[in-house]
């Protein structure tokens, strides 16, 4: 059989020689190895000060996008909640009143929108499902909390601020936009 790598070694179980039985040479060799390693550069990344680059398609904390005018894109269709394998998303829909056009882009909007970050597995299916380009995963890390309840993120944490837009170009690539336009795929139909 062809070996996968050429690193396999034949195991021999022979009697140990006297020098090997003494163990001391082996121990000494081991000590030299550990001593040498003391002067190697450490592999540590000093986390809060130094951050490693994340993969371009890293999936972290969600953002609910606003459109160019600052209106929320989400229309509370519930597709993300249906798509979510972890059942992390819940929402309540409400009808847009007169004069709220600047706040909500569609006639129906999410009055409440909650994602339970402890349930979420950051699969990104909600993002795929959304017909309105409203939800995206970002490269922000969900911070730790002391209480479970604090992990349920409401709209206050999810919707981006009008003057602090969250960059999602890494995930909203031209290919993705093109894919979303394909109305023959059922979930893009709405």
């Amino acid at each position, binding site marked *: 059989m062809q070996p996968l790598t050429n690193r396999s070694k034949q195991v021999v179980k022979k009697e140990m020689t006297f020098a090997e039985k003494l163990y001391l040479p082996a121990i000494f060799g081991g000590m030299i190895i550990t*001593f040498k*390693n*003391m002067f*190697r550069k*450490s592999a*540590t990344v000093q986390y809060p000060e130094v951050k490693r680059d994340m993969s371009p398609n890293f999936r972290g904390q969600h953002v609910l996008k606003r459109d160019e005018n600052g209106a929320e894109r989400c229309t509370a269709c519930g597709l993300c909640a249906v798509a979510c394998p972890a059942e992390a998303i819940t929402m309540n829909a409400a009808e847009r009143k007169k004069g709220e056009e600047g706040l909500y882009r569609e006639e129906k909007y999410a009055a409440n929108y909650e994602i339970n970050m402890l349930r979420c597995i950051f699969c990104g299916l909600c993002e795929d499902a959304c017909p309105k380009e409203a939800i995206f995963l970002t490269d922000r890390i969900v911070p730790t909390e002391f209480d479970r309840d604090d992990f349920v993120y409401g709209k206050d944490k999810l919707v981006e601020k009008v003057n602090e837009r969250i960059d999602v170009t890494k995930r909203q690539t031209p290919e993705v936009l093109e894919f979303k336009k394909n109305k023959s795929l059922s979930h893009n139909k709405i």
Partner: protein
Amino acid sequence: MEAGLLFKIILVVAMFAVSLLVAMYSTFLERKVSAWMQNRKGPNRAGPLGLLQPLADGVKMFMKEEIIPNVSNKALFIIGPCVAMTTALMAGALIPWGGDIELWGRTFTLQVADLNIGVLYIFGITSLGVYGIMIGGWASNNKYSLMGAIRASAQMISYEIAMGLAIIALIMSTGTMSLKEIADQQDAGLANFVYQPLGFLIFLICAFAELNRAPFDMPESESELIGGYHTEYSSMKLGLFLFAEYINMFISSAVIVTFYFGGYHFPFQNEINEALGLSTTMATALGTGIMFLKVFFFIFFFMWIRWTLPRFRYDQLMRLGWKSLIPLAILNILVTGVVMWMNGKIN
């Protein structure tokens, strides 16, 4: 008399303070050394370079919830760590930390007590140390703790024999049981490890076993016994157990240095002291400094071994103790005797 007593009291307090301080920073050093050997950085957040880490650890230990299991024997459960700590601190009294210093126009020796049976005292106190572990492990009423305690006592008994035999050869060649005399005999000539290389090796290996340090940390073995004798302990009682180990490490490093590496003496010391024109007190200070350097080297050595070797298996440990070290130690005694006879030291 008054001044002598006062000096002794100061020395005792200083001994405790230094032992605790060294032990404190040994815990820090252990974490640093292990980090360096594994290409990590180790604790570096508390204070500059992480130097306040031991304090943070101590505060943490005190703040933790104190749990005494319902089914345990409460009195013994509390006595266990106390015994471990007390015995750890007791052995330091006999270590000669330096030569003479002149104070208030009188001469004092940097040693709390110079017993003429000092070696026996040290030996006795270190064996008492196992009672802390045994009592603690038994009182916990937990199978793992009991296993750890049994292993600790078996290990102590096995390795104490080899250790004692190694010391016998040392006593034969030095002809004294006083630690100060053993140290002073090595002032001009060669240190004892030149005369007793095998004895030194056996003593060192046994010291690892007596200290319950890796590769002989059978009584605790985190991976098999989830902490062994201190499984049930929490808060500062656990802290005392862990701390006692580091004090023991400091003391046994000092004992090794005194026995085999000339204690506070160093090569060419008379020439160097003369060249620098040091007074007696200053020469003693230098000697004590050198002694501490040696001790720190051995503390580092204990850590170095710990982060190099994996743990022995229990049967391997017993085989090494009974089948290798004890015969070797007896052989060492024989060889020492023959060499001394040939040199005409005994007839």
